[in-house]
């Protein structure tokens, strides 16, 4: 039996209501005990005094790019980036090449992650064949192969009739449907949020209504069908209000997330034609950010994600209009949450952690995100006071396109443990033979 004792840390395990100084004992890759003053002898001991010990973070929205665009990212590089950020489980988006609309791609991702043995990778499948929005993919096959959800992330299902059928069908298969909410007729070539900033920059822009309308349409169809629906990366006031109203009305089948950049940064990041600030949904104006933060406080939003979207440099050196959409985020998500929500006084650290651990685990129904006795020992240890300046060039992700590049953040993963094994420590990868 191999054991690991994490001593004197401030343990935050929202699932079990723990928020105080405790020790955590790990035995054979599982949580054995969480208590004060554990006296058991262990093979290894980590002194976590002054640090915060939490379940390993779970990110519901990551673009690993493999298979197909290994020049942008691989499952391996995404895993190292995740570990550097205290993230131990990721949900991989299906917009790879080929698209994960068949069980072969799902099986490949699972196999590759298992070989790497770095973090837990949960693939998703596409809703429609090729994410083309015309015919349903073989959703039951995807589920049986191991997909935790289906989504046409990045494009969305534009046809409401097809979306309704997809919801009926995912309900039949008992699998979650994740919607990227965008009405294409309204985004219409827009490359940033429509507002005073886009007018000054002279860029074609996307009205918030493009997201609002798609969210409303998705909510109505979820209520109509009773299917489990998760709304990806919400960013507008209108979306927040619609989701809040649906939850108030008693909808139990609806969950929603916010990508951390959308409560942290505004569309002003686009000044200077900064292509790292180009993403969908776009960074919004202050009134939307304020609404999103209110929605986080009252639990309209269940989870925080990154929408980690690595790209190669030339794709971001294009003119703003042509540049690729998306920012990387795995290495910065905890720090962004801690800086812009906890340090800013909006929410407690425990609440922030809960939206990055147990809540996302519930959404995709994985047995993760807690420090319950017997649970897999996926653990992150953070220095929540550490101030650092993001240097995207040093990122472990292949993508250096991080919108937080150059920003000062507070809070950093010190150690990341997966299945009881320390994989990342003090800014370095820990390579273990697997």
């Amino acid at each position, binding site marked *: 039996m191999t054991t690991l004792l994490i001593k004197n840390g401030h343990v935050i395990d929202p699932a079990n209501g723990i928020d105080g100084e405790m020790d955590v004992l790990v035995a054979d890759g599982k949580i054995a005990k969480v208590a004060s003053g554990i006296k058991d002898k262990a093979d290894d001991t980590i002194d976590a005094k002054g640090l915060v010990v939490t379940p390993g973070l779970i990110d519901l929205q990551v673009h690993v790019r493999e298979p197909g665009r290994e020049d942008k990212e691989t499952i391996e590089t995404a895993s190292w980036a995740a570990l550097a950020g205290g993230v131990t489980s990721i949900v991989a988006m299906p917009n790879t090449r080929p698209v994960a609309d068949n069980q072969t791609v799902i099986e490949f991702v699972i196999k590759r992650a298992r070989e790497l043995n770095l973090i837990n990778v949960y693939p998703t499948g596409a809703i429609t064949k090729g994410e083309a929005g015309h015919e349903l993919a073989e959703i039951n096959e995807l589920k049986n192969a191991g997909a935790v959800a289906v989504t046409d992330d990045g494009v969305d299902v534009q046809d409401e009739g097809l979306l309704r059928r997809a919801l009926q069908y995912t309900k039949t298969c008992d699998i979650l449907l994740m919607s990227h909410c965008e009405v294409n007729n309204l985004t219409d070539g827009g490359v940033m949020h429509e507002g005073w900033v886009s*007018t000054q920059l002279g*860029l*074609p*822009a996307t009205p918030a209504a493009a997201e609002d309308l798609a969210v409303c349409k998705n909510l109505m169809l979820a209520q109509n069908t009773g299917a489990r629906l998760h709304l990806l990366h919400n960013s507008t006031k209108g979306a927040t209000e619609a989701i809040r109203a649906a939850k108030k009305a008693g909808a139990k089948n609806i969950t929603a997330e916010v990508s951390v950049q959308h409560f942290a940064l505004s569309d002003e990041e686009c000044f200077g*034609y900064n292509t790292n600030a180009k993403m969908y949904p776009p960074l919004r104006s202050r009134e939307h950010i304020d609404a999103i933060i209110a929605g986080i406080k009252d639990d309209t939003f269940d989870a925080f994600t990154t929408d980690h979207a690595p790209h190669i440099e030339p794709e971001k050196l294009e003119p703003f209009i*042509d540049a690729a959409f998306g920012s990387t985020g795995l290495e910065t998500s905890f720090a962004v949450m801690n800086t812009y929500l906890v340090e800013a006084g909006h929410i407690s650290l425990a609440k922030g952690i809960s939206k990055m651990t147990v809540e996302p685990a519930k959404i995709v129904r994985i047995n993760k995100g807690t420090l319950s006795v017997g649970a897999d020992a996926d653990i992150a240890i953070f220095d929540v006071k550490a101030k650092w300046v993001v240097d995207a060039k040093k990122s472990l992700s292949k993508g250096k396109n991080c919108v937080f590049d150059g920003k000062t953040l507070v809070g950093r993963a010190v150690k990341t443990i997966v299945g009881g094994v320390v994989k990342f420590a003090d800014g370095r990868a820990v390579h273990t033979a697997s």
Partner: protein
Amino acid sequence: MSDATEKDLIEIRAGRDVSFFDLHSAEQITAADLDIILDVARGFRKHGTYKFAFNKGCSMVNCFFEASTRTMSSFDLSAKQLSMDTSNVGSANSSTKKGESYLDTAETLDAYNLKVIVVRAKEAGVPEVLARHVNASIINAGDGWHEHPTQGLLDVLTMLDHCGGKDLKGKTVTIVGDIMHSRVFGSLVRLLKKLGATVRVAAPETFLPAHVEKFGITMHHKVEEALAGADVVYALRVQEERGANGFIPTLREYSKMYGISKKRLDMAKPNVILMHPGPVRRDIDVHSALVSVDERSHILRQVENGMAVRKALLWLMANRMDGRKKSMVRK
């Protein structure tokens, strides 16, 4: 003659320099910059096509990734009248056709040790971004729907000459047409606000970008309302090539609602001037009879002022009195 002519300009310049090393936005132009540029431009205008030796030994490339008649020829002639060597690169004959990025094209040209690269692109932001990557001074000759600063400068020179005085306080400028897709508007409105003018725009809502009123202007759906008592009427072109299709039902209806006719121009002040950045779409933006025949039309004067303003900028930017150099931080 030669010594006296050059001496005249040197006296007008009086050792002054502009505050910027690249010009991508009218936002960069301070009140002091405007004074220098317009003083020097008027000086050059006075001496017509006289060939100055000021910029001898300096090279410039016109890098036009989008078609142009007046801006490109005007930059080219201005440079030549300052004894510069020039070359023109267009999208049809450039390597961007072969898939080379703007950035690689600009860095290649920069390796010629150019003093100035004039850039026009159909995408907003290209000049501003290129300026961060090359040693040459970048001058924006129009980027997408964003800005066209030298057009803005020649426009305010034309207006100031007409109105007299050093600013446009108490003067009303009415801009009519496709505001959203217009880079001319983007630079003009920024300069007009610096000069204290009252700015009105008249356009259908589909031609107005979000929160455009934050420039400090008023918006009007009825053109007549915007024209009443105006000192300057500025008609913009309906930009079919930059996406105006679908924003209005037909050009015919647009012309009836917003086209500047003699009758409409009469609603402005009696000494009003009519301006247009060109190329004019006759009988759509402006009725034919007004374009060149009507004495209120200043359209050709704008073109003449364009030469003067560009010559001034090229001299001021390529030949600094203070000896300072652009410090380029490669991003």
